[in-house]
């Protein structure tokens, strides 16, 4: 441990507060206005799709296409996931196999 227990507790508290702000904010801001606001209604229908897109990019943000290994482990694993998910349509299988393939790639092939 680099920090003291009290400092660690403060960090946990801060991370918790930060998370809670982002989760509670929309419900506090839009309290009561929802039912007669069609713009917010529209956003709540389309945003989930955009948000998942953002999350995928967020997970892949550290890939570097300029230096070796040029993002190849990620690209290969994601292609496998897509193929597997279209073929078998089994969430667990796609996630599990995709992760194992990635771990093998970064541990043994693109080391």
């Amino acid at each position, binding site marked *: *441990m*680099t*920090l003291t227990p009290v400092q*660690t507790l*403060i*960090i*946990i508290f*801060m*991370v918790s*507060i*930060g*998370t*809670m*702000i*982002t*989760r*509670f*904010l*929309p*419900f506090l801001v*839009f309290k009561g206005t*929802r039912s007669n606001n069609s*713009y*917010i*209604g*529209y*956003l*709540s*229908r*389309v*945003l*989930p*799709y*955009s*948000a*998942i*897109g*953002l*999350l*995928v*990019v*967020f997970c892949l*943000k*550290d890939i570097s296409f300029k230096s070796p290994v040029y993002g190849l482990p*990620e690209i290969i*694993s*994601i292609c496998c*996931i897509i193929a597997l*998910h279209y073929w078998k349509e*089994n*969430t*667990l299988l*796609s*996630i599990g196999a*995709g*992760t194992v393939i*990635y*771990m093998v*790639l*970064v541990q043994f092939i693109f080391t």
Partner: protein
Amino acid sequence: MKEKITALKAAFPHTIPVLTGFIFLGTAYGILMSSKGYGVGWTVLFSLIVFAGSAQYLAITFLTSVFNPLYALLMTLIINARHIFYGISLLDKYKDTGRLKPYLIFGLCDETFSIVCSTNPPEGVNRNWFYFFITLLDHSYWVLGSVLGGILGSIVSFNTKGLDFVLTALFTVIFIGQWKTRKDHKPAIIGVLCSVICLVIFGQSNFIIPSMIAILAALTIFRKAEKEEIKPCDEKESVQ
């Protein structure tokens, strides 16, 4: 009581993918924490009261550098800013959830959101308890995974390199699932495209907020272009 059990039974199958994902991720998190000298108690405390995977992973870097609470708060806000989107998306679904509402909002992590957004309770199942149990189960899996990882990390050591890809895999699968069940791909494409463009422009540590602004702007422009075609997200779409 019977009502709650019915809701629990209906909720459980939807959370199975998260069970696996969180046992993986939680275990990896617990192992990582223990490798930095934080025992299982700290890990569980974190997982119980924060319950946000990416923020907790990021928080490991706050714990291993100079003590700076304000930086920790700001980074958490940025990395979790996407939750604001989730909240807006669920304003309607969580409107009449009464006394369960604070916990439902507290537990609104990425995975819980993706299930709640894409799933409706079967007929005869209480809506509020259904969403409550999805949230509670996911929360428990996360804590359970953390405990396992914390214990495992203190007794054995093995190469976990690449294990965090499970998060990427999970989101990719959700993305494909949404893509297959929806004809209009514009929101998904907007999400990916705006994020990639902002990533290139602003770099990996600053692109989230610009991406969110760009996504909102793009969605707003497209809404004006064609108002009627978009269907609600809660038709038959499942994470599975």
